[in-house]
């Protein structure tokens, strides 16, 4: 381990220990800051009882549906808009009008149409993830070396095969950038939509724990969420390294 990492972990331990001591000494309101040991015990208990895994599973179902829906719609659309100036210009005004809408305000609209079920959350995640994927795909396709496409044509590749074999691989790094940005947005929006209109999921769990003043459970939920974010990011890096290998 690097020495800088060690001092980092020492600092982390110091923060945790200071929290524990300050909370035990009664220097802070225990209602707001319960002792760290109590939070961790609560986290482990919720993990063992299956409560946290169940809530995370609900959130992940919604997140995955919205995320993959956005990818399946926006990558082909982005390729079309990146390849054809005509398609791009036809859709430009619609895209530029919808893009500045802050995603959370789409939640009330989605609630009108879809109620407070999974459909609402999936739509909201789809809406917010769509932009980074779409814009990065357009950019990636536009920046492809024209020579590559011409070469493919010279060798008699049909349009569909050119897109699959030449355009998509060449634009892949930038598409991955869009997918990566969208991944963290997905997590934010699933939590927001569960806070505003839901009866389960990790976002609901955290807000509800706060409202019932089960503060240790609230912090336990936040620990679970941080772990989830970390794991998802690492998983994404792993997959994208494999997909982009040889580049």
């Amino acid at each position: 381990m690097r020495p800088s990492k060690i001092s980092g972990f020492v600092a982390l331990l110091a923060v945790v220990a200071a929290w524990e001591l300050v909370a035990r000494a009664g220097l802070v309101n225990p209602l707001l800051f319960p002792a760290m040991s109590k939070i961790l015990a609560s986290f482990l208990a919720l993990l063992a009882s299956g409560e946290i895994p169940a809530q995370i599973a609900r959130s992940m179902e919604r997140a995955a549906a919205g995320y993959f829906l956005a990818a399946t719609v926006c990558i082909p659309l982005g390729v079309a808009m990146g390849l054809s100036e005509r398609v791009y210009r036809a859709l430009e005004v619609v895209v530029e009008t919808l893009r500045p809408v802050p995603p959370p305000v789409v939640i009330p609209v989605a609630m009108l149409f879809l109620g407070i079920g999974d459909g609402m959350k999936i739509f909201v995640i789809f809406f917010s993830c769509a932009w980074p994927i779409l814009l990065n795909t357009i950019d990636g396709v536009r920046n492809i070396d024209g020579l590559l496409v011409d070469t493919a044509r010279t060798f008699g590749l049909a349009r569909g095969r050119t897109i699959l074999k030449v355009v998509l691989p060449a634009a892949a790094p930038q598409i991955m950038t869009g997918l990566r940005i969208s991944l963290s947005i997905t997590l934010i929006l699933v939590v927001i939509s569960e806070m505003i209109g839901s009866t389960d999921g990790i976002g609901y769990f955290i807000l509800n724990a706060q409202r019932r003043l089960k503060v240790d459970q609230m912090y336990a939920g936040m620990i679970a969420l941080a772990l989830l974010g970390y794991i998802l990011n690492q998983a994404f890096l792993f997959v994208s390294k494999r997909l982009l290998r040889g580049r």
Partner: protein
Amino acid sequence: MRADRRFNLAGLGVFAALLLLWELYSRAGGVESYLPPPSAALKALTEPNVARALFGHLAGTLGRFLGGYLLAAALAVAAGVVLGYSRFAYSVSEVIIELLRPMPSVAIIPVAILCLGIGDAMMIAVTIYAAAWPILLNTIDGVRNLDRTLVDTGRTFGLGRVKILWQVALPAAAPYIATGLRVSLPIALILVTTSEMVAGVNGLGFFILDEERSLRPANMYAGIVVVALLGYALNRLFVAVEARALAWKRGLQAKGEA
């Protein structure tokens, strides 16, 4: 890109056609409760009492946005310069940063409600928390990638540590800081509107959710138009300010390349 970009007839045509389709569909009836025609939303926008209410909510949202965003910028740039410049400070805080960063920032809202109650302080605090991350990380990057020659030159000319930070490190890291500020802008707006929805008594986020619950969808859409315009205007403003603030840099680079 072509020269006739300014006026996009096809794009405007598609946009108008979609609006027209929406107008006709919802006029055909049966969907008023969730999809009023766009003309009804526009009409709501021009009604004096709705417009007055919207203006008040807009002012509330804008105030919280500016408070949170500007404070986040000041705090995160200051912290980022220190963490980027001092190896010790960075190694001490690295693990804590890596632990906090992957947590979706909105999860901090319940904690903020507990500690600060319901009000502007809570909303500004969560906005600062969320908007600070991209600025902090980019500032650290910018200062760490600083050309050592610049610092050494400054030292040769007898500049003290503080002056080097102010007059050398900060300007050199400016493009990175600008990137962080650009990424943070929509994040700050997301956090302001979200906290207004979860625990607000005014602001555009509150208004939009409240009109939805009161079954006045035309007003809700009017609110969304206003918040989209706000997002658009803030982005344009940012691009304009950034172009002016970093103009010296571009001139320098152009000269360097020539």
